[in-house]
Protein backbone atom coordinates (compact mmCIF):
# COMPACT_ATOMS: atom_id res chain seq x y z
CA UNK A 1 0.00 0.00 0.00
CA UNK A 2 3.04 2.33 -0.10
CA UNK A 3 2.86 5.27 -2.46
CA UNK A 4 6.10 4.43 -4.24
CA UNK A 5 4.65 1.13 -5.45
CA UNK A 6 1.70 2.78 -7.14
CA UNK A 7 1.77 3.48 -10.84
CA UNK A 8 2.04 7.00 -12.18
CA UNK A 9 -1.61 6.99 -13.17
CA UNK A 10 -2.77 5.81 -9.76
CA UNK A 11 -0.68 8.51 -8.12
CA UNK A 12 -2.20 11.09 -10.43
CA UNK A 13 -5.72 10.06 -9.61
CA UNK A 14 -4.92 10.14 -5.88
CA UNK A 15 -3.53 13.66 -6.22
CA UNK A 16 -6.69 14.77 -7.98
CA UNK A 17 -8.77 13.09 -5.29
CA UNK A 18 -7.06 15.21 -2.62
CA UNK A 19 -7.46 18.31 -4.71
CA UNK A 20 -3.75 18.74 -5.42
CA UNK A 21 -3.15 20.30 -8.80
CA UNK A 22 -0.32 18.40 -10.41
CA UNK A 23 1.67 18.23 -13.61
CA UNK A 24 2.97 15.09 -15.33
CA UNK A 25 4.36 12.50 -12.96
CA UNK A 26 7.88 11.79 -14.17
CA UNK A 27 11.13 10.84 -12.47
CA UNK A 28 11.93 14.33 -11.28
CA UNK A 29 8.44 15.12 -9.97
CA UNK A 30 7.43 11.77 -8.55
CA UNK A 31 9.11 12.08 -5.18
CA UNK A 32 7.64 15.53 -4.57
CA UNK A 33 4.12 14.33 -5.35
CA UNK A 34 4.50 11.29 -3.09
CA UNK A 35 5.42 13.55 -0.19
CA UNK A 36 2.53 15.89 -0.93
CA UNK A 37 0.15 12.96 -0.89
CA UNK A 38 1.52 11.70 2.41
CA UNK A 39 0.92 15.11 3.96
CA UNK A 40 -2.58 15.29 2.53
CA UNK A 41 -3.44 11.81 3.78
CA UNK A 42 -2.21 12.68 7.29
CA UNK A 43 -4.24 15.89 7.33
CA UNK A 44 -7.35 14.10 6.14
CA UNK A 45 -7.14 11.55 8.96
CA UNK A 46 -6.43 14.16 11.66
CA UNK A 47 -9.15 16.63 10.65
CA UNK A 48 -11.91 17.04 13.26
CA UNK A 49 -15.32 18.72 12.97
CA UNK A 50 -15.25 22.39 12.10
CA UNK A 51 -15.25 25.05 14.81
CA UNK A 52 -17.16 27.58 12.76
CA UNK A 53 -19.70 28.42 15.43
CA UNK A 54 -16.93 29.19 17.92
CA UNK A 55 -15.28 31.48 15.40
CA UNK A 56 -18.54 33.33 14.85
CA UNK A 57 -18.92 33.93 18.57
CA UNK A 58 -15.41 35.36 18.67
CA UNK A 59 -16.27 37.72 15.86
CA UNK A 60 -19.34 38.86 17.71
CA UNK A 61 -17.30 39.56 20.81
CA UNK A 62 -14.91 41.67 18.79
CA UNK A 63 -17.74 43.80 17.44
CA UNK A 64 -19.08 44.42 20.96
CA UNK A 65 -15.71 45.67 22.15
CA UNK A 66 -15.34 48.12 19.27
CA UNK A 67 -18.87 49.42 19.85
CA UNK A 68 -18.17 50.09 23.51
CA UNK A 69 -14.86 51.81 22.84
CA UNK A 70 -16.46 54.03 20.19
CA UNK A 71 -19.30 54.90 22.58
CA UNK A 72 -16.90 55.76 25.42
CA UNK A 73 -14.80 57.90 23.09
CA UNK A 74 -17.87 59.83 22.01
CA UNK A 75 -18.89 60.47 25.61
CA UNK A 76 -15.42 61.70 26.62
CA UNK A 77 -15.23 63.92 23.54
CA UNK A 78 -18.61 65.46 24.41
CA UNK A 79 -17.38 66.18 27.94
CA UNK A 80 -14.29 67.88 26.52
CA UNK A 81 -16.44 69.99 24.21
CA UNK A 82 -18.64 71.28 27.00
CA UNK A 83 -15.71 72.16 29.24
CA UNK A 84 -13.40 73.90 26.77
CA UNK A 85 -16.03 76.03 24.95
CA UNK A 86 -13.88 76.31 21.87
CA UNK A 87 -16.75 76.94 19.51
CA UNK A 88 -14.68 77.64 16.47
CA UNK A 89 -13.00 74.27 16.67
CA UNK A 90 -16.16 72.33 17.39
CA UNK A 91 -17.37 72.35 13.80
CA UNK A 92 -14.50 70.47 12.22
CA UNK A 93 -14.16 68.31 15.32
CA UNK A 94 -17.76 67.23 15.00
CA UNK A 95 -17.26 66.51 11.36
CA UNK A 96 -14.19 64.41 11.96
CA UNK A 97 -15.92 62.72 14.88
CA UNK A 98 -18.87 61.94 12.67
CA UNK A 99 -16.56 60.62 10.00
CA UNK A 100 -14.78 58.47 12.53
CA UNK A 101 -18.08 57.20 13.80
CA UNK A 102 -19.16 56.41 10.29
CA UNK A 103 -16.05 54.40 9.66
CA UNK A 104 -16.46 52.62 12.98
CA UNK A 105 -20.04 51.74 12.22
CA UNK A 106 -19.25 50.61 8.70
CA UNK A 107 -16.47 48.28 9.79
CA UNK A 108 -18.61 46.91 12.56
CA UNK A 109 -21.41 46.28 10.12
CA UNK A 110 -19.23 44.28 7.74
CA UNK A 111 -17.83 42.11 10.50
CA UNK A 112 -21.29 41.45 11.82
CA UNK A 113 -22.55 40.47 8.39
CA UNK A 114 -19.69 38.08 7.71
CA UNK A 115 -20.17 36.41 11.06
CA UNK A 116 -23.96 35.98 10.84
CA UNK A 117 -25.09 34.58 7.53
CA UNK A 118 -28.08 32.74 9.06
CA UNK A 119 -31.27 34.50 10.04
CA UNK A 120 -31.24 33.25 13.63
CA UNK A 121 -29.73 36.39 15.14
CA UNK A 122 -31.39 39.02 12.94
CA UNK A 123 -32.91 40.67 16.03
CA UNK A 124 -29.39 40.82 17.50
CA UNK A 125 -28.04 42.65 14.46
CA UNK A 126 -31.03 45.01 14.61
CA UNK A 127 -30.21 45.76 18.24
CA UNK A 128 -26.62 46.52 17.24
CA UNK A 129 -27.83 48.95 14.56
CA UNK A 130 -29.85 50.76 17.20
CA UNK A 131 -26.75 50.82 19.42
CA UNK A 132 -24.88 52.61 16.63
CA UNK A 133 -27.61 55.05 15.71
CA UNK A 134 -28.37 56.08 19.27
CA UNK A 135 -24.95 57.59 20.09
CA UNK A 136 -25.02 59.25 16.66
CA UNK A 137 -28.35 60.85 17.49
CA UNK A 138 -27.10 61.91 20.93
CA UNK A 139 -24.00 63.49 19.40
CA UNK A 140 -25.98 65.35 16.77
CA UNK A 141 -28.30 66.71 19.50
CA UNK A 142 -25.31 67.87 21.54
CA UNK A 143 -23.81 69.61 18.50
CA UNK A 144 -27.13 71.30 17.82
CA UNK A 145 -27.31 72.57 21.40
CA UNK A 146 -23.71 73.79 21.20
CA UNK A 147 -24.44 75.76 18.03
CA UNK A 148 -27.61 77.15 19.59
CA UNK A 149 -25.50 78.22 22.58
CA UNK A 150 -23.17 80.14 20.29
CA UNK A 151 -26.12 82.03 18.83
Amino acid at each position, binding site marked *: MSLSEKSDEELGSLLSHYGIKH*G*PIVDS*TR*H*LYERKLEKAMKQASVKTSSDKTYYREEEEEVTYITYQSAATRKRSANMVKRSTEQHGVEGPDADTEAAVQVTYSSTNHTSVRSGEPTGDKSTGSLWKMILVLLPLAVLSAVCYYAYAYIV
Partner: protein
Amino acid sequence: MSTTSQKHRDFVGEPMADKPVTALSGIGETLGKKLEENGFDKAYVVLGQFLLLRKDTEMFTDWLKDSIGANSRQASSCAQCLKEWCDAFL
Protein backbone atom coordinates in the same frame (compact mmCIF):
# COMPACT_ATOMS: atom_id res chain seq x y z
CA MET B 1 8.13 46.73 -6.61
CA SER B 2 9.63 44.80 -3.70
CA THR B 3 13.35 44.60 -3.30
CA THR B 4 14.68 42.48 -6.18
CA SER B 5 18.36 41.73 -6.33
CA GLN B 6 20.63 42.64 -9.20
CA LYS B 7 20.96 38.93 -9.95
CA HIS B 8 17.19 38.66 -10.26
CA ARG B 9 17.00 41.64 -12.57
CA ASP B 10 19.90 40.34 -14.69
CA PHE B 11 18.22 36.97 -15.17
CA VAL B 12 14.72 38.22 -15.85
CA GLY B 13 15.88 40.88 -18.30
CA GLU B 14 16.95 38.60 -21.16
CA PRO B 15 16.55 35.06 -22.58
CA MET B 16 18.52 32.65 -20.40
CA ALA B 17 20.26 30.88 -23.31
CA ASP B 18 22.98 28.64 -21.82
CA LYS B 19 23.35 30.38 -18.47
CA PRO B 20 24.49 28.13 -15.60
CA VAL B 21 22.20 27.33 -12.69
CA THR B 22 24.13 29.75 -10.49
CA ALA B 23 22.71 32.58 -12.60
CA LEU B 24 19.32 31.91 -11.04
CA SER B 25 18.32 34.19 -8.20
CA GLY B 26 18.68 32.43 -4.85
CA ILE B 27 21.04 29.77 -6.21
CA GLY B 28 24.62 30.24 -5.06
CA GLU B 29 27.63 27.98 -5.40
CA THR B 30 26.55 25.41 -2.84
CA LEU B 31 23.03 24.97 -4.13
CA GLY B 32 24.30 25.15 -7.69
CA LYS B 33 26.59 22.18 -7.11
CA LYS B 34 23.77 20.17 -5.58
CA LEU B 35 21.55 20.92 -8.58
CA GLU B 36 24.30 19.81 -10.96
CA GLU B 37 24.70 16.58 -9.01
CA ASN B 38 21.01 15.93 -9.57
CA GLY B 39 21.45 16.44 -13.27
CA PHE B 40 20.28 20.05 -13.45
CA ASP B 41 23.43 21.57 -14.92
CA LYS B 42 21.95 24.50 -16.82
CA ALA B 43 19.33 27.10 -15.93
CA TYR B 44 17.05 25.90 -18.73
CA VAL B 45 16.90 22.41 -17.18
CA VAL B 46 15.66 23.97 -13.94
CA LEU B 47 13.20 25.90 -16.08
CA GLY B 48 12.08 22.56 -17.44
CA GLN B 49 11.32 21.36 -13.93
CA PHE B 50 9.47 24.58 -13.19
CA LEU B 51 7.34 24.04 -16.29
CA LEU B 52 6.70 20.40 -15.40
CA LEU B 53 5.28 21.63 -12.12
CA ARG B 54 2.91 23.81 -14.16
CA LYS B 55 4.69 27.03 -13.22
CA ASP B 56 3.33 26.68 -9.68
CA THR B 57 5.74 28.65 -7.51
CA GLU B 58 4.63 26.92 -4.33
CA MET B 59 5.18 23.44 -5.77
CA PHE B 60 8.52 24.49 -7.24
CA THR B 61 9.60 25.96 -3.89
CA ASP B 62 8.71 22.69 -2.18
CA TRP B 63 10.64 20.77 -4.80
CA LEU B 64 13.75 22.90 -4.33
CA LYS B 65 13.59 22.52 -0.56
CA ASP B 66 13.04 18.78 -0.89
CA SER B 67 15.66 17.97 -3.54
CA ILE B 68 18.61 20.24 -2.66
CA GLY B 69 17.76 21.47 0.83
CA ALA B 70 17.24 25.11 -0.08
CA ASN B 71 15.76 27.33 2.62
CA SER B 72 12.50 29.24 2.18
CA ARG B 73 14.14 32.48 1.10
CA GLN B 74 16.38 30.90 -1.53
CA ALA B 75 13.65 28.68 -2.92
CA SER B 76 11.02 31.40 -3.17
CA SER B 77 13.58 33.75 -4.71
CA CYS B 78 14.40 31.20 -7.42
CA ALA B 79 10.73 30.45 -8.02
CA GLN B 80 9.85 34.12 -8.36
CA CYS B 81 12.79 34.64 -10.70
CA LEU B 82 11.65 31.83 -13.00
CA LYS B 83 8.03 32.93 -12.85
CA GLU B 84 8.90 36.43 -13.99
CA TRP B 85 11.16 35.09 -16.71
CA CYS B 86 8.28 32.97 -17.98
CA ASP B 87 5.90 35.91 -17.85
CA ALA B 88 8.30 37.89 -20.00
CA PHE B 89 9.59 35.35 -22.50
CA LEU B 90 7.52 32.21 -22.52
